[in-house]
């Protein structure tokens, strides 16, 4: 049966390559390999899309037509909303300061959703994360076809379990409206059951896939971070509460006490950068920690390759694609137990996000024991053969088929 999915996304590479965008792209490509036609609706002009994908986005005329007053916030504003909510006192004291703005932006995308897709003859609507849920819902009602809500991250994950009630309610409503929910991990599924009261039998788990990077970075880039004389421990992610970079510094302090020559790289940008720099200096790590800021794809790959250990200490990580990226570059990984990726990794250390002592111990063990590092490097990548987007999209396809039968 030829299937056609009408998909609502929020970001898509290269426009932005956060976890959501990367996962969305992987899934679209995987679905195409599974002979599923995809019509993708995005809030912005993509520039150039993948071949064979019908990509739609709001045009000026359309905006005039539906007459929504506010303009779309830049993407980053949405992404960091929860973080600002958490870290910024102004946001906390004035919950409506950002609320209406965000609400209006989402509402605009929602209002245009049906307009943009009136002519699409799809079998199923599939939407990604809360910003698109209402758009998906209206499209599903308009076309009278089933609705699949995919959840890549919840408001609870983003805010250290201090959710913005408006967003959390929006998520809950969207999830309840869907005919089927796809969570990126059992971890997220449990969170939806516990914190959103969603019935467990409505939720299917499809772990994210991984696409092998095509190009290997040149050696000049490899030597740029850390001299290869010393072991290198890598953190890569946005410097936000959710990713727990503060903990990485705690871990670094403990490792430093035993092995002062070890270098630490914190790759990524984010609102916590200034306080992290202060903290690193306070700990006497100024000569051992390198803050790279936001990096390009090739630099990121070079870092993965140069690292001796990759650490993902996230507070609450629905999946954690970065861990698979590190593994693809044959780097041993230590991941937070409070993550989805921990469910699919066999050859890795898994530690509670709060246990800095144990994380440090695992790092020191990997650095000390060469056979251990070698085995982790050799064995961990096996999972990537199983977790391809083609395989994972096959699971999504059978969810569609099941809904339509």
């Amino acid at each position, binding site marked *: 049966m030829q299937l056609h999915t009408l998909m609502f996304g929020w970001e898509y590479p290269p426009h932005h390559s956060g976890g959501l965008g990367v996962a969305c792209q992987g899934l679209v490509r995987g679905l195409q390999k599974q002979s599923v036609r995809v019509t993708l609706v995005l809030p912005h002009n993509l520039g150039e899309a993948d071949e064979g994908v019908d990509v739609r986005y709001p045009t000026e005329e359309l905006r005039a037509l539906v007459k929504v007053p506010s303009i779309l916030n830049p993407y980053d504003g949405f992404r960091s909303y929860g973080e600002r909510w958490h870290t910024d006192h102004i946001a906390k004291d004035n919950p409506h300061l950002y609320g209406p703005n965000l609400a209006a932006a989402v509402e605009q995308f929602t209002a245009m959703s049906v307009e943009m897709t009136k002519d699409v003859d799809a079998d199923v609507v599939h939407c990604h994360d809360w910003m698109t849920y209402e758009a998906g819902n209206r499209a599903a009602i308009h076309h009278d076809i089933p609705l699949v809500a995919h959840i890549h991250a919840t408001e609870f994950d983003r805010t250290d379990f201090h959710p913005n009630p408006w967003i959390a309610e929006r998520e809950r409503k969207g999830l309840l409206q869907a005919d089927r929910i796809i969570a990126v991990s059992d971890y997220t599924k449990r969170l939806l059951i516990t914190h959103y009261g969603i019935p467990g039998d409505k939720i299917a788990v499809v772990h994210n896939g991984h696409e092998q990077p095509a190009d290997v970075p040149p050696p000049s880039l490899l030597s740029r971070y850390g001299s290869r004389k010393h072991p290198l421990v890598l953190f890569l992610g946005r410097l936000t509460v959710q990713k727990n970079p503060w903990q990485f510094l705690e871990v670094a302090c403990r490792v430093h006490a035993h092995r002062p020559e070890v270098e630490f790289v914190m790759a990524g940008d984010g609102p916590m950068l200034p306080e992290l720099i202060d903290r690193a200096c306070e700990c006497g790590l100024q000569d051992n920690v390198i803050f790279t800021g936001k990096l390009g794809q090739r630099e990121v790959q070079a870092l993965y390759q140069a690292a001796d250990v990759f650490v993902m200490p996230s507070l609450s990580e629905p999946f954690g694609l970065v861990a698979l990226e590190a593994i693809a570059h044959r780097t041993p990984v230590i991941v937070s137990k409070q993550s989805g990726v921990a469910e699919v990794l066999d050859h890795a250390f898994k530690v509670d996000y709060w246990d800095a002592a144990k994380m440090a111990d695992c790092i020191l063990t990997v650095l000390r024991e060469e056979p251990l590092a070698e085995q982790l490097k050799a*064995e961990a990548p096996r999972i990537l053969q199983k977790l391809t987007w083609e395989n994972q999209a096959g699971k999504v396809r059978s969810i569609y088929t099941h809904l339509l039968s």
Partner: protein
Amino acid sequence: MTPLISFYFQVHQPYRLRDLRIDEIGCGEPQYFDASKNRAVFRKVAEKCYLPANRLMLELLESYPDFRISYSLSGMFLDQCREYGEDVLESFRKLVTTGRVELLAETYYHSLSSLKSLAEFVTQVRKHTEAIQVLFGKTPSVFRNTELIYRNEIAHVARLMGFRGILAEGADHLLRGRSPNEPFLPPTFRLSRDREGIIRKLRPLPRPAEQIHVLLKNYRLSDDVAFRFSDKSWVGFPLHAETFTDWLTGSGGHCVNLFMDYETFGEHQWADTGIFDFLRALPRIWQERGIRTATPSEVLAAWQREPKSTQRYDAHNFISWADMERDLSAWQGNRIQGAALDAVYALEHAVKATGNPLLLEYWRRLQTSDHFYYMSTKYWSDGDVHKYFSPYESPYEAYRRYSHALCDLRQRVAAETGSTPKKATRRKQR
């Protein structure tokens, strides 16, 4: 002809490791072993298996004068009895006093020393034999190696140590269609003069045996009880004592060797599966049908009374009773296992040079095969038995703890001998 039935049960508990941390290494004398965990596991298994199973065995031995069984009690188990369960040790003593229970010899530390160091291997067998003599007043005459690890050479070492019999897995590829139900002989050859000299110096029994027979585990019938008894998807489920007895007699030959872990009764197969009732029914049915049981040395004695030709069992490569592969891959299947095993035996000379009994004891407890089994990644993702039996979260956690313990031991040994430990110097590059 109706075969003899020979039961042998393995009884063993390892000393599991603590969640050791790197900052404990080289700081005083950290505990390597998790006393509270080891106590908890021991007591759990004692209540579910050792005590109820021993009660039943005693009852059966008292009710059926021809009923015979055999055990191998590892030194690690005996040590833990002294720490956590005198009651358990006492219940085994009662069984042995019936005179119809044979105790087998093994390495005291349930170790893989047969793979790594002949002197250490013979020393550990000697220590075990002495412990059995002291605790039970018996001298073993049949040997079983850790996890039935076996090859021709081990049979000859056992013969030179003084044993008349040795147990092994009845591996299909070595039997090549023959039945495992009779004693076999290993091919004859001589060990090097040096190796013979080491054995002569350290052997547990006063003189070598002239001949050693191999008793082979009938793995199909043994595993029907040990692994499949409660498997509802198994065609033989539910297994009744009558049916099983039919299978035993149908199997024919001189003896059917049923070798299994003692935990089969009450721990691997829980009481509510009916395993105890099954066991209770067997001697009654066997008595009614005139089927006799025998201990391994009685099986051998019976075999030698009737002159007949004995076949060869030629195990050039190692076999064991572990996993589907029945080879060494459960302990030597990956890089971390190999590294850990090499590292612990690399310390042999230095540890012995200290002459410190405490360090020697730690080093030997770190040789227990379970430590390496927990590091196996063979079927890790399939949630198989390695996972089920591991007290740790993962094979990597097992290695982390083990390598810390070994690091500390290495430093303590170096401190006593006044030398710098090789690996530690490289690591301390501040």
